[in-house]
């Protein structure tokens, strides 16, 4: 009888602990197509389940793993955020081709991180902005579910746009510089050649040295005065301290 009571009370305690954990502790689910690690307990179980369905659909359609990670780590600063959550990604057994939405409740910052082949779709940083811009109104309302749904929807849209060609990207980023340089080069070529055809043989028509001589009778080189000026040179010793780190993915920067 006593043994039965002990078993029952243990089961009750375990049940209470499980209920308590389900309310205040992390929800985590990792599959091939998506991962939700809700360490900050941002989503309710229903919300997480609903998001999981959408993440799974998106993951299946794109072949990417969609990761939503919430935490209370309180990491601030773009570099630190990127470094910290890249380490987090490395520490988990996430898929190689993945896109991760990080919601850091501690610092109030969010970040989008891409890994593997997904990075090729986001070489154009403006594509991060498509997602961020769609999420922003929901974030302002602190509607994390709505924001996450926007993240899923817009990430799929970016996938459908295809990979960003490096050439196109270079054109967008450096095209104007190349354009200006090409106009200058073309003009310089035109003018230099026109000048080369126009002004031939004008120089060196008289050699004074060969056609003159001098017989000096009066030569004076008298020292008059001397002065010295001193100038203090300001040396610029500012140098970059040069820090670097290697992360596994690309970050959009905190927002």
């Amino acid at each position: 009888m006593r043994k039965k009571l002990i078993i029952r009370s243990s089961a009750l305690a375990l049940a209470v602990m499980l209920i308590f954990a389900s309310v205040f502790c992390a929800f985590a689910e990792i599959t091939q197509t998506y991962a939700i690690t809700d360490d900050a307990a941002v989503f309710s179980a229903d919300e997480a389940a609903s998001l999981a369905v959408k993440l799974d659909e998106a993951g299946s359609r794109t072949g990417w793993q969609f990761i939503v990670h919430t935490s209370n780590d309180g990491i601030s600063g773009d570099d630190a955020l990127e470094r910290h959550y890249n380490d987090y990604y490395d520490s988990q057994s996430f898929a190689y081709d993945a896109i991760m939405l990080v919601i850091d409740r501690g610092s109030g910052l969010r970040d989008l991180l891409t890994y593997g082949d997904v990075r090729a779709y986001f070489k154009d940083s403006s594509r991060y902005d498509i997602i961020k811009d769609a999420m922003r109104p929901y974030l302002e309302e602190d509607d994390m579910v709505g924001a996450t749904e926007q993240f899923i929807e817009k990430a799929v849209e970016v996938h459908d746009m295809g990979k960003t060609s490096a050439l196109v990207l270079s054109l967008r980023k450096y095209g104007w510089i190349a354009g200006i340089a090409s106009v200058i080069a073309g003009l310089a070529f035109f003018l230099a050649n026109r000048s080369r055809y126009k002004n031939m043989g004008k120089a060196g028509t008289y050699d004074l040295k060969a056609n003159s001589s001098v017989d000096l009778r009066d030569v004076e080189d008298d020292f008059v005065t001397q002065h010295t000026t001193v100038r203090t040179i300001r040396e610029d010793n500012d140098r970059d301290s040069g820090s670097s780190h290697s992360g596994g993915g690309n970050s959009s920067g905190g927002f």
Partner: protein
Amino acid sequence: MATMSYKCPNCDGPLKFDPEKQLFTCEYCLGEFPPAQVQQMNQQKEQHETYDEREVKHAEQVKQEAQAQGIDDNGEYAVSYTCPSCGAEVVTTSTTAATTCFYCYNPIVLGSRLSGEFNPDRVLPFELSKEKAVDRFLAMCGKRWFLPKGFTGKSQVEKLNGVYFPYWFADEQKSAHLTATGKKIRTWRSGNKEYTETRVFHVVRGGDVVIRNVFERALKSESRDMLQSVHPFDMSKAQPFAMSYLSGFQAEKRDLDKKDVEPVIEQKMHEYAEQVLKNTMEGYDVIETESFNERTDLAAYTYNLLPVWMMTYKYNGEIIPFAINGQTGKAYGQLPVAAGKLAIASVIVAVLVFVLGTLGGMLFL
């Protein structure tokens, strides 16, 4: 008429001066004669040539009539002669002193143009043959891709004419005196200090300065730029003037007197004399002239004919001269540009730079 034609003593064919051999040659019997022999043979003939009064009167009359109508403002007028070989009428400008008969292609020297006060003191014979001048011209054009099609064709090359152009040359000896401030500047560093030491000197130079071969064109009707820029010539090879050197070439008579060019030459002499004295102030980093004065002790002006291979072409409605020094081969002038070709090439260069820039940009993504 006041014309000269130098004939071969063997076959009576026309004699021409060969710049490479420095001999007179007959293209019919291939005889070759040194200049001294040709001059001796024609000396008597040259002395009998006098200025044809009728020719001058007629030309002046034509000029006055033209000026009265307001159509002649360049000082030139046409004069006609009779070719001593074929009897054809040869029309030249008033400054032409040697030419070729347009009918029989025999060389004619208009002796009257270079007699009396217009008799040159020296002539620098051609050293560069027409073939070599053409080679130089073609070699130079070969390096230029944007010439109009056909510019280096036979018809263009045939336009290259050997012309003796008139120049005034001056040699002067001057007593010159230059006072200047000379500065020697030394800079060094010690720690974060930069020291500049300036030592100032009172510098004087005085003496006899000789300046030779200062030249100025003696023909106002031709482009000054062209006539001045085709220099330098090695005047040590100049010969006492003999009309026979002009045979086979064109020659121009001067239309600028010594007094016309004197101010320009004297200004050059003044600047050169100061420069010569400055050049003796060695070891100074800065020389600032305080005073310079000079006096001309000796001056000698000579009238010379210098050899130039020349052609003209029409470009953008303008007649453009192109000249090659008949002694050294130095080229002067303006070559025409095929604007279309150059524009296409410039666009290709621009596109290449754009493509390379864009591809290079991919390395920095």
